[in-house]
């Protein structure tokens, strides 16, 4: 291969678990290092480059000073990829958006609250245009490799647009609803190989929602399975608080008109 495209990794508010998953993907796909040149990966290397074609961004935007950084990355990079649920959806960071900001800061930092800068958590697409997304909390390492290959070939990565239930059925799992549990599989975007239901736990929709999800119908199903309104809302907002609040605001806006 002639010139290897330069790749950089950046992280905003996150656990850095998606970048860790990238490191893990090298265990099974060492050829990745031959296809690209990594010029920045603070968690794993000291070298720092500012010349890159592809920028992978992990984490949510949670403070005003994140915005100029994100915009600078966008200006330098030809392709910006949102890496994982925090960058893609806001993810668990957005849970706190439902709480009053000043009370939230006092709860954690007491009378020192004003020392630390923060505002409601947002996906990076709320700040800069994003060219591709690798969903999930954390990302799936095989999907990471597939998306990198697509981007290197100049193609838009193809992500599944069907629900987790499809993959779960293909795995021949017993449906969690039949085991007395509940699950967001019917409305959640697939691509994870239904890993949570496979390990006996409910899907939490960390990859986001399918197009046109029937959320009201799922809420009825959850209620039929004994979930209170609070429990249902908790389930829907673990990774999707930002989206839930956006759609509530839109519905509210429509009501006014």
């Amino acid at each position, binding site marked *: 291969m002639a010139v290897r495209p330069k790749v950089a990794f950046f992280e905003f*508010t996150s656990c*850095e678990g998606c970048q860790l998953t990238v490191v893990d993907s*090298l265990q099974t796909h060492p050829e990745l290092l031959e296809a690209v040149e990594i010029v920045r990966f*603070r968690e794993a290397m000291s070298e720092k480059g500012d010349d890159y074609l592809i920028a992978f961004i992990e984490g949510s935007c*949670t403070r005003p000073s994140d915005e100029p950084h994100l915009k600078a990355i966008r200006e330098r990079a030809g392709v910006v990829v949102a890496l994982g649920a925090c960058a893609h959806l806001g993810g668990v960071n957005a849970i706190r958006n439902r709480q009053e900001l000043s009370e939230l800061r006092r709860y954690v930092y007491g009378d020192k609250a004003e020392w630390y800068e923060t505002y409601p958590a947002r996906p990076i697409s709320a700040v800069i245009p994003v060219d591709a997304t690798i969903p999930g909390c954390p990302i799936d390492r095989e999907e990471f490799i597939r998306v990198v290959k697509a981007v290197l070939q100049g193609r838009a990565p193809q992500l599944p647009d069907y629900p987790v239930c499809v993959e779960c059925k293909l795995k021949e799992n017993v449906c969690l609803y039949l085991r007395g549990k509940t699950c967001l599989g019917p409305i959640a975007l697939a691509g994870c190989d239904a890993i949570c239901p496979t390990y006996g*736990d409910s899907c939490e929709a960390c990859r986001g929602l399918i197009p046109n999800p029937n959320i009201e119908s799922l809420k009825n199903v959850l209620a039929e399975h004994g979930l209170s309104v609070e429990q249902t809302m908790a389930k829907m907002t673990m990774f999707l608080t930002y989206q839930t609040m956006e759609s509530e605001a839109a519905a509210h806006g429509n009501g006014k008109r």
Partner: protein
Amino acid sequence: MATGSVKIDVHHITRVEGHGNIVVDVKNGQLKQCDLEIPETPRFFEAMLRGRPYMESSHITSRICGICAIGHATASLRATEKALGVEPSAQTVLLRKLNFHGEMLDSHILHAYMLVAPDLLGAPSVVPLAKAAPDVVLRALRMKKLAGDLCAAICGRHTHPIAMTVGGFTHFPSKADLEALRQRLIEARADVDATVELFQKLKIPAFERDTEYIALSKPDEYCFIDGVIKSTDGGSWPVEQYRQVTNETCVKHSSAKRTRHQRESYMVGALARVNVNFDLLHPKAKSAAGALGLKPKCVNPYMNTVAQVIEIAHCVEDSIQLCDVLLSRGVTWEEPVAPARLSGEGVGACDVPRGTLFHNYVIQDGLVSGANCIIPTGQNLNNIEADMRALVPAILDRRPEEITLSLEMLVRAYDPCISCSTHMLDVKFV
């Protein structure tokens, strides 16, 4: 000591988890400023737990950290179980220990091989090291994959665990899974020996500063989960009294809170555990300690990486023993133990790769009403700064780049997990 002036500002230390800056200002031989700044964004996890069902706590808090996700999940589950009167089964305890070893190995291998070894081998990162010493890097990747596969067999994946739940597990490894893991762990003994040999050859910087070392401890095993809080300065405390030990405060240059106990600062992590619990290490780990020249109490913080190598030897041997016990008693599909009540308060404590971690929850009618998490790196920050203040005057005659590298290596030796540590709170239970 030199009489010159030095200004060092390392913006975003590399090869650590999270964002940290080193700021040193020396004027005419006088140390004016020597701070480890933590500009990481505040994360607010404790506040986010409020009002949410207790079953979600371990899933949300594992997202504090990609590297110690299982540690956070385990501490979270123990806090919830103590609050709600849940006594996990003997099988659950065994599986959690084995799972925990998987994360300990994964994290220590990542740190010792990929983040520290490049410094000691004179490489800027593991990527050029892969060309210069491919066998070293391939060994690290092989050991790391085994650690990850161990976690995957028990809880689905290391980042973020799936099958760990209040009162037990939602999935169980098969006999074949355990047999295959046991075989690979036995084969990994050669890699452990080679790791000890590698770190025998590497030159660990000489620097000593006595401090207080704190770790969880049990009378009959090298402790990672539960136990009591124990100090090398003497004394032990039930984990429920953790606030007497941690005494958190805020400082302006860090979104991570600081702690102090019987001195100005204390250290947690592999070196602290080895110093507190040396006698309970597996014999193979003790002989690794002998080969690597670590005797308790060791007061060189750079030796934390060596202590991690010793724990790698311990965890591989203990994992083999745990596989043997699980295989001989057989793993059965158990329903998780149901809570005895839906309200209460509990403290869960684990010694995760970077040190002692506390989760403290108050639960009311099944919903979390108050939460406090105290993270190892937060506990180490005062100690790192105290080390920096002792080290800088002793090396002022060196070139600024050398001083910078020494300080970076010092911070890296602690294996700081910064995104973890920036979400601690004043305790205010509603």
